[in-house]
C-alpha cells in the first residue's frame, strides 16, 4: 500500500537546503511531501488537518531544540498546535500518531534526511489512513 508522509520542517534544520530537499524527494518519490517553513511556529493546526484530509497518512512537524528557536518560542507554540490538531483527529477516530512533532533535542545535529528516514520508518507502521480507504488522495 502506498504511503504518503508529509514533513513540515523549520528551515533551521541541519542540511535542509533546497538541494537536500530535492534529493530526498528523488529518493522517496511520491511517498513523501516536504514543506519548508521559516519557523515551526508558523504552522497552524489547519495545515496538518488539510494535509491529512487531502493526501497524507501522517504529518510531522520538525522543530528546533527547546531554547534555540530563533523566534524564541515558535517551537513551543508548535508543539501545542500539534496537540490541538491531534484533538481534532482523535475525535473522529484517527490515530493520534498521524500528527506528530519531532523536536530535536539539544545538541542533536541530525540532518533533515536522517530525521525523515527515522520518522518515515515509524509512520510506515501505521495502517494506511482510513480517509483514503474509499476515496482518492488529492495530488
Amino acid at each position, binding site marked *: 500500500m502506498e504511503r504518503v508522509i508529509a514533513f513540515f520542517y523549520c528551515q533551521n534544520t541541519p542540511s535542509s537546503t533546497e538541494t537536500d530537499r530535492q534529493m530526498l524527494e528523488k529518493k522517496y518519490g511520491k511517498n513523501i511531501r516536504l514543506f519548508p517553513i521559516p519557523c515551526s511556529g508558523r504552522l497552524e*493546526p489547519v495545515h496538518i*488537518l*488539510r494535509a491529512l*484530509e487531502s493526501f497524507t497518512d501522517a504529518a510531522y512537524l520538525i522543530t528546533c531544540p527547546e531554547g534555540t528557536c530563533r523566534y524564541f518560542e515558535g517551537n513551543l507554540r508548535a508543539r501545542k498546535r500539534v496537540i490541538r490538531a491531534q484533538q481534532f*483527529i482523535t*475525535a*473522529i477516530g*484517527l490515530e493520534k500518531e498521524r500528527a506528530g512533532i519531532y523536536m530535536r533535542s539539544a545538541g542533536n545535529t541530525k540532518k533533515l534526511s536522517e530525521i525523515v528516514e527515522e520518522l518515515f520508518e515509524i509512520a510506515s507502521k501505521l495502517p494506511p489512513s482510513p*480517509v483514503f480507504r474509499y*476515496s482518492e488522495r488529492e495530488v
Partner: protein
Amino acid sequence: MITAEQKPIDEIRKMIAPYKRILVLGCASCVAECAAGGEKETAMLASTLRMAARMNQEDVVIQEKTLERQCVKDFVILLDDILDNYDAILSLGCGAGVQAVADMYEDIPVIPALNTEFIGETKDQGLWVENCLGCGDCMLYYFGGVCPLARCSKHLLNGPCGGSKDGRCEVNPDIPCAWQLIIDRLSRFNALDRLEEIYPPKDWSKKQGKGPRKIIREDQQK
C-alpha cells in the same frame, strides 16, 4: 466580547448527520478573537468533518465560508446568492449569530457548532475571563471598576462573604475574590469609605426584562 467554545465533534456530527450539503459558516468577530469560530477554526472544523465523512463513506459536501459578523443583517445577507447550494448551515457564530442567520433564512436549518459562554476580556493569550453579566445597570463606578455581579461567585453587593481566603474565592480557588479586588482597587483611589454604605438591592428587572431585551434608537433607523 462574547466568548464561546467549540462543541465536541461527536455532538456536531450527530446534529449534521441528516444533511448532505453543509455550509460551515465562520464569524470573524468575537468568536475569532477567542479562537473558537474564526476563519482558521472554521477551516479546521470543515476539514475534520470532511475527513470523517470520507472515512465513513458518507456522501456529503462540506464547504466553508467566514462572514465578518453573523449578528448583523448586512453581512449575513451576503449568503443570499449561495444558499441554494446547501441544505444546512453549521454556524460557528455565537448564539446571537446562529439565531440571526436562522431568523433570516428560515427554510434552512442553522446548527450551532459552538457553546456560547460569556461576555469577557482576553486577559492574556489563550485566556478569556468573564467580567460582565449584561445587567443593564452598570455599577462599576461604585466598585472601582470591578463588577461584583460578574466576578463574585455569589454576586454580593455588600461583600465579601466569609469564604474569601488569601484573595481567592472559596467556591473556585482559580478565581480571585472579587471583593478583595474591589477593596484593593478602591484603596488605591482612597475611596474605601464608599463601601461603608449599604448598597441597596439590585433591580434585576433591567437584566431579565420581560423576555428578551431590546434596544431601539430612532436616530439610527433608516
